[in-house]
């Protein structure tokens, strides 16, 4: 019963994402300079917003909470945010690379935002490695919470990297001083996709969190059974 609810939640999330893409692909004009390839922003930008915004905020909140009231439950909530964040950071890097090939003529360049996003992916991966290399207990909760907070410090750097360094990456066109530079139809489609991917991320987080709790419960039960 519980399993079918999770599958249903996942399917609803996927349907919402496809609705967003269908809207963006059907009702937005082609970009004057980049042609149809610009439409990758409807995957790239929402994935980046989810990784840098929602997942980082989730990680920050659960990490602070983990330090104030250490519990395995809150640590698993943090870990789930890291895993979802890693998925969306990887999607951001992959879609950015595809977009880069068509606009800059290269799959990869050591651009500031690319480098800092890549560093974020490494840090999220390192969080998971550290989590696995520590024994269960309050010390693990504290250590992972401290690392969670440190990782979140990296997020403003990624966001501001485009304005701090002179880079190939285009400046922000959604939140910008002096008005938006984007066509209203494109802007609305982008906002819709950001919103829908955020819902999808939250659903993914909920499913993963439940899985980790279940795994923890099963491990505990098997230990009690042995003893």
């Amino acid at each position, binding site marked *: 019963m519980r399993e079918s609810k999770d599958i249903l939640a996942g399917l609803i999330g996927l349907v919402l994402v496809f609705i967003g893409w269908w809207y963006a692909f059907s009702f937005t004009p082609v970009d004057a300079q980049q042609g149809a390839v610009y439409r990758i922003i409807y995957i790239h930008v929402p994935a980046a917003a989810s990784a840098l915004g929602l997942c980082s905020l989730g990680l920050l909140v659960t990490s602070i909470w983990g*330090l104030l009231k250490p519990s395995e439950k809150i640590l698993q909530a943090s870990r789930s945010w890291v895993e979802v964040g890693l998925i969306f950071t990887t999607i951001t890097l992959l879609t950015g690379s595809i977009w880069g090939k068509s606009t800059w003529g290269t799959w990869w360049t050591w651009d500031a935002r690319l480098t*800092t996003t890549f*560093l*974020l992916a*490494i*840090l999220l991966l*390192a969080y998971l*490695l*550290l989590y696995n*290399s*520590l*024994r269960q*207990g*309050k*010390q*693990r909760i*504290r*250590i992972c*919470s*401290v*690392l969670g*907070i*440190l990782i979140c*410090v*990296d997020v403003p*750097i990624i966001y501001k990297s485009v304005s*701090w360094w002179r880079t190939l990456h285009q400046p922000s066109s959604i939140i910008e001083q002096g008005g938006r530079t984007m066509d209203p139809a494109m802007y609305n489609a982008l906002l819709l996709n950001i919103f829908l991917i955020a819902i999808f991320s939250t659903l993914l987080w909920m499913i993963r969190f439940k899985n980790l709790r279940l795994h923890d419960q099963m491990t505990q039960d098997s230990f009690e059974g042995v003893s």
Partner: protein
Amino acid sequence: MTTFLRQLTSLTTHFIRVELANLERLLSPILFSTTILILFFFAFSPMDQEVFVKVYIAQTFLSMFFALQIGFARIFEPDDQDDAFTLLRTYKPIPEAWFLSKYIVITLFGVLVISSTMGLSIFFNQSINISVASWSVFLVAILALLGIAALGLLLSAMMLKADAKQILYPLLYFPLTTPVLLAAVQCSQEILINNMSLSELLSSWLGLLLVFDAIYIILSTLLFGELVKSE
């Protein structure tokens, strides 16, 4: 406050004595940075004068960065060997005093590494008619050290109970210290290439470096206590 200062003074003196008693721990990072510097010089010489300054900054900062990592990763080794962590359960020092005493020791050690690396780098570059010796660049390197030493110490405390600390430490140290290193390198380039002063850089790269120093020092001081708490 008096207890804090008393603990800070006695812990700092103790940690300095421990470091001096094991001179190989102090000398090995310096030798390591010298080796990296030699490799860099061998790989890049002879060099075009235009790129010389950029390469000088990159090789000096990278050598220091790698050498410091070795020192930071081993800062709790003596405490671990002497069972200090077990003994500290019975008489707990104030975590901030413990952190700051280690921080003072590691910063002093870092200043030694920075001075020797920069000195050697300037010495090796004598054949080229460009002066790279600059007190401003030295100050920038010290400011970078203040930030990465705090972070290095915190990471070292985090790794105490980790199984794969030799792999995990650099995996966390390098990405997290990148903003400080980038700001320090950019500051040095502006000083040596564009002849900018430190006060001019305060609103750009130097400001960013100071902001990250403050973030890392404050976060590390606050979070260190959480890491050394008993289960």
